[in-house]
């Protein structure tokens, strides 16, 4: 392990080297472009030893990965926003074909209005595809989560693809240190992918994506649900191994900070969760019993962890950098439904903001947390949903 200094996108490209990815098929889109750009460069230098396939669209990129993964190859790609949306059909296909592809989605707002900065709407809209979803808060976490994702996706109990989300520009183009692992080091953790079911092989042909009529279709869908559910348990094992081998641990599905005795817990996804640590530290100094729960995994949703946390706090201040139009904050609503069948149901206040890359500073986060603190103190929930910093 050695310390390198790179942007999150370059580090993502390095993860393809470390994990001995065999096929990368990608199409450029800001802010993900420098991921495949760097993979191409590393390929030219002979550092990335897999195949780099240039394709004409994101739709083709994901389907080239599907083809590669169907032959038993380890496949990876990166995209953003409209690119991820253009992959949609392939995302559903990869999940239902149980192909352990890993994609780095560099979160970017969806158009129109045209905007290249971060919102989580692109990946939120993919929650129901079956893909496991992570949100990371640092360059180091992105690099190591990508490597962990291959192990998780390829586990026979899971066998589902993984989307690792990193905030556009805030992470993608921000240079920071991370601990790089040589492929020889990762070998101890990640063996070559060996598919437990069919592979496409001209010597032993199979037909995939066959017609399945009502007699069995539902059972295949149940299998997907089980696979994604199992990821919660399997990821714990993956993290344990990873910590033992490399000393790296990012907090499980929810990275909790000062949550033990907290009355109000702030939840968020992505890089804002790192910023929120500072906000919580400052509020603690000011005497508020608050904590920070950075939600790293939204599918499978960490219901056990949320219920455990919900059992001891008075309120959640749940921040979403995206919207389910007509219903509200996607993760806030997931937290609410997770807590519905529990005895102790704390307040869940939903906040939406930081859209289109609008900066969410420590001051903003403190303001949000204090709004929930006020609700707890007064005993009045107030508005269920607040759009933070919304102009008149």
């Amino acid at each position: 392990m050695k310390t390198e200094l790179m942007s999150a996108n370059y580090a993502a490209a390095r993860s393809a080297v470390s994990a001995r990815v065999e096929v990368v098929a990608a199409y450029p889109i800001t802010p993900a472009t420098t991921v495949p750009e760097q993979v191409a460069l590393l390929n030219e230098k002979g550092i990335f030893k897999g195949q780099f396939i240039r394709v004409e669209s994101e739709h083709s990129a994901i389907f080239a990965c599907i083809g590669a993964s169907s032959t038993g190859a380890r496949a990876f790609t990166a995209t953003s926003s409209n690119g991820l949306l253009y992959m949609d059909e392939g995302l559903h296909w990869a999940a239902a074909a149980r192909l352990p592809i890993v994609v780095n989605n560099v979160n970017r707002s969806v158009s129109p209005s045209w905007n290249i900065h971060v919102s989580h709407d692109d990946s939120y809209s993919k929650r129901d595809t079956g893909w496991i979803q992570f949100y990371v808060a640092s360059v180091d976490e992105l690099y190591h989560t990508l490597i962990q994702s291959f192990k998780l996706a390829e586990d026979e109990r899971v066998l589902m693809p993984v989307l690792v989300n990193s905030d556009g520009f805030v992470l993608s183009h921000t240079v920071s240190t991370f601990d790089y692992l040589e492929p020889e080091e990762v070998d101890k953790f990640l063996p070559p992918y060996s598919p437990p079911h069919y592979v496409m092989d001209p010597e032993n042909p199979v037909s995939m994506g066959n017609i399945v009529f009502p007699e069995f279709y539902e059972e295949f869908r149940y299998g997907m649900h089980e696979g994604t559910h199992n990821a919660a348990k399997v990821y714990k094992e993956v993290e344990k191994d990873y910590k033992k081998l490399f000393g790296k641990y990012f907090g499980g599905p929810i990275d909790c900070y000062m949550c033990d005795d907290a009355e109000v817990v702030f939840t968020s996804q992505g890089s804002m969760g790192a910023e929120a640590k500072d906000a919580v530290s400052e509020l603690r100094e000011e005497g508020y019993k608050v904590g920070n729960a950075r939600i790293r995994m939204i599918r499978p949703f960490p219901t056990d962890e949320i219920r455990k946390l919900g059992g001891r706090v008075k309120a959640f201040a749940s921040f979403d950098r995206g919207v389910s139009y007509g219903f509200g904050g996607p993760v806030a609503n997931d937290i609410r439904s997770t807590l519905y069948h529990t005895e102790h149901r704390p307040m869940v206040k939903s906040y939406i903001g930081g859209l289109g890359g609008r900066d969410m500073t420590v001051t903003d986060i403190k303001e949000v947390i204090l709004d929930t603190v006020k609700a707890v103190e007064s005993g009045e929930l107030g508005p269920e949903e607040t759009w933070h910093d919304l102009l008149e």
Partner: protein
Amino acid sequence: MPKTSYSKPMIGATGETGSWRTFDPVVDYDECNRCRTCWLHCPEAVITLDEDGTPHTDYDYCKGCGICAQVCPKKCIEMVRTDERKRRTGEV
């Protein structure tokens, strides 16, 4: 249950798909010159050839698309309603 749907190549993996048919190709063997054009174009590969090139359609799997009739240079493949063909051959 396998994890996902896939099959090994075999005859009739999805049942006898010939039941999907409405029209059946019927070759007029007096006119047919054994050119094999129909055999070459059949998307389901259900046309087999005798040694002299005489085509035979496997009605268990032919889906009745009519491509063979379209491409036949001699226009000697007629698409006939399934029940009509069966009446002609005495199957019904």
